[in-house]
């Protein structure tokens, strides 16, 4: 018996922009930024019961949606696909768990180090050892900061500002963080004591899975003017720190799953799958969940700020350099929910924007972009998979009008973890990358196998689609030198 596959109709709008046609209970036609090969991969997945396009179809049945956009790193998630941005009407819309996920405000914090990549390569081994020693990473590994529940409340309200007050970095750093590292309007009562207890020793820790701290060479500059304004020189050194709100964010998600499940029944919302649990934005449940997301986001900003400073101190230990000479480049989250102003049907209005595996990529002149970069657009840090290139892009005006100012966050997975485990072993991967001059230090060698470079889409094509479609433009390409993982 063959199962009937219901193929979604996808219309090609231009070379890199497609539109999935509205069918059944869908309320709109979502846009997909992709190349032909990516679309054919999505099509191939449709034979599976659970696939990206099915998740996209389900997501677009939710009430009050004003737009759904998928970027070129699109792949299957839980409930909503990764690489998706939704914009919802504040009165009619819902706040959906799956469109932000468990790893609230997971993102990338980055540094520009005033050392040449050549200088760094000469002490690569020592640097890797010191990073591995000083940056807490891996399952169950706590950090130096131990907070009690009332200190946790200060952290949830203060975000990166709290980290700075505790001696991690300076106020200047805050200017270089999305929302200046602190989202206002947090009601700490919206976060359970359980969530606070679960993360008391996790501020300043990387975690595990695909989270990492990577030292990179600025291999190529594509846009000289923007790179100059961004402080990026070819042959220079860059650091990317990828992690999120850790167990605090995970517990917030865990706590709100049953609350949103009950809200679906209470407000009589029709959802095609249970993993799309949600609540009206304007409802008590919706507002509390939104506050908890803001709190989780602040915890993530603080977490990355602390790690950023720990990394600066490692450079101070290994090289003749003062931590203050290392500049915070930018910090941006990719699992978020925010009220933003966007043009909808020609009118600028406030909407709820949820991004899952998608970052802001605001265009030139936007007041949310740090003054230093404002003329050129917001820096977008696109994290590659282990051993592959990462990219710095800049946001564009086109993104503001087409994608609610959103863009890609990384490569996106192309292979399941179980498939990846059947491939090269962790030891083999370490060896292969070492031959390419990339030094990996990881606590879990099995985990390395799951994160093998081949388990992800080709970052070059993912970036190219965004560049060619004019949503985000290439500024620089980074090559990994040292990568520390949990």
């Amino acid at each position, binding site marked *: 018996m063959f199962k009937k596959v219901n193929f979604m109709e996808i219309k090609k709008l231009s070379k890199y922009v497609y539109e999935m046609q509205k069918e059944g209970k869908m309320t709109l036609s979502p846009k997909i930024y992709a190349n032909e090969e990516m679309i054919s991969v999505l099509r191939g997945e449709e034979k599976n019961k659970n696939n990206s396009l099915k998740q996209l179809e389900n997501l677009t049945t939710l009430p009050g949606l004003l737009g759904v956009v998928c970027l070129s790193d699109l792949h299957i998630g*839980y409930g909503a696909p990764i690489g998706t941005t939704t914009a919802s009407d504040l009165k009619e819309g819902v706040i959906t768990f799956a469109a932000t996920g468990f790893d609230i405000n997971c993102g990338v914090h980055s540094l520009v180090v005033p050392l040449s990549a050549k200088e760094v390569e000469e002490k690569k081994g020592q640097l890797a050892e010191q990073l591995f020693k000083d940056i807490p990473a891996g*399952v169950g590994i706590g950090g130096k900061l131990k907070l009690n529940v009332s200190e946790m409340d200060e952290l949830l309200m203060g975000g990166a500002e709290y980290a700075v007050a505790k001696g991690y970095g300076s106020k200047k750093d805050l200017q270089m963080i999305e929302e200046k590292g602190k989202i206002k309007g947090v009601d700490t009562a919206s976060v359970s004591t359980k969530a606070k207890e*679960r993360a008391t020793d996790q501020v300043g820790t990387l975690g595990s899975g695909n989270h990492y701290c990577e030292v990179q060479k600025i291999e190529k500059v594509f846009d000289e003017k923007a790179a100059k304004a961004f402080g990026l020189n070819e042959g220079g050194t860059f650091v990317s720190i990828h992690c999120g709100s850790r167990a605090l964010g995970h*517990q917030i998600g865990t706590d709100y799953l049953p609350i949103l499940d009950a809200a679906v029944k209470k407000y009589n919302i029709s959802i095609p*799958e249970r993993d799309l649990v949600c609540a009206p934005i304007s409802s008590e449940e919706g507002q509390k969940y939104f506050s908890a997301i803001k709190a989780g986001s602040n915890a993530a900003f603080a977490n990355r700020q602390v790690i950023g400073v720990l990394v600066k101190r490692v450079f101070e230990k290994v090289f003749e350099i003062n931590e203050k000479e290392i500049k915070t480049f930018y910090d941006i989250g990719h699992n978020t929910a925010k009220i933003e102003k966007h043009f909808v049907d020609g009118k600028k209005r406030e909407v709820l924007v949820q991004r899952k595996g998608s970052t802001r990529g605001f265009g030139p002149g936007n007041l949310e972009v740090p003054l230093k970069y404002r003329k050129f657009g917001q820096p977008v840090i696109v994290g590659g998979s282990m051993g592959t290139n990462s990219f710095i892009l800049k946001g564009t005006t086109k993104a503001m009008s087409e994608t609610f100012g959103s863009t890609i966050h990384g490569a996106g997975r*192309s292979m*399941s973890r*179980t498939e990846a485990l059947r491939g090269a072993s962790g030891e083999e991967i370490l060896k292969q990358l070492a031959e390419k001059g990339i030094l990996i230090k990881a606590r879990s060698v099995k985990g390395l196998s799951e994160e093998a470079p081949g388990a992800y889409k080709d970052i070059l094509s993912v970036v190219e689609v965004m560049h060619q479609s004019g949503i985000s433009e290439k500024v620089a390409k980074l090559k990994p030198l040292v990568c520390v993982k949990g």
Partner: protein
Amino acid sequence: MGREHFEHKADIGVRGRGHTLEAAFEECALSMVEVFVDTSRINPKKAHKIELEGTDNGALLVSFLNELLFLKDSKKRIYSKFRVKLGKEHKVDEKGNVKEVVTLKGTLFGEKINFNKHVFRTDVKAATYSELFAGEKNKEFIAQCVVDV
């Protein structure tokens, strides 16, 4: 009757099978713990009791798995053996309405995390409602969902 991990492109599916739903819950829990640690090295020497409730067996399974993750992070305890008893109770809500809830009374057997002994793998962030099933299918009981890693 066993446990397994099932395919999911970004995350991982955990599944337990048993002659009873309770046994399937226990196998599913072990399947999830095996994602983040080698369970053969966890000595089930200390028992810890938990009580949970939910609107239905699916929600209860997700709460059960998430409770194990909470205990790992907050109490630094990990488990390799589980005894689960499922039941039903009637509760009165704030508005005075009587509603039926499903309950889980469990005993978890394990120990405190010891980094010299326990070999950790990829952390599990949470159990999700994705591909969630807790019930009977083809004459066996299955408890499964996707966990976020």
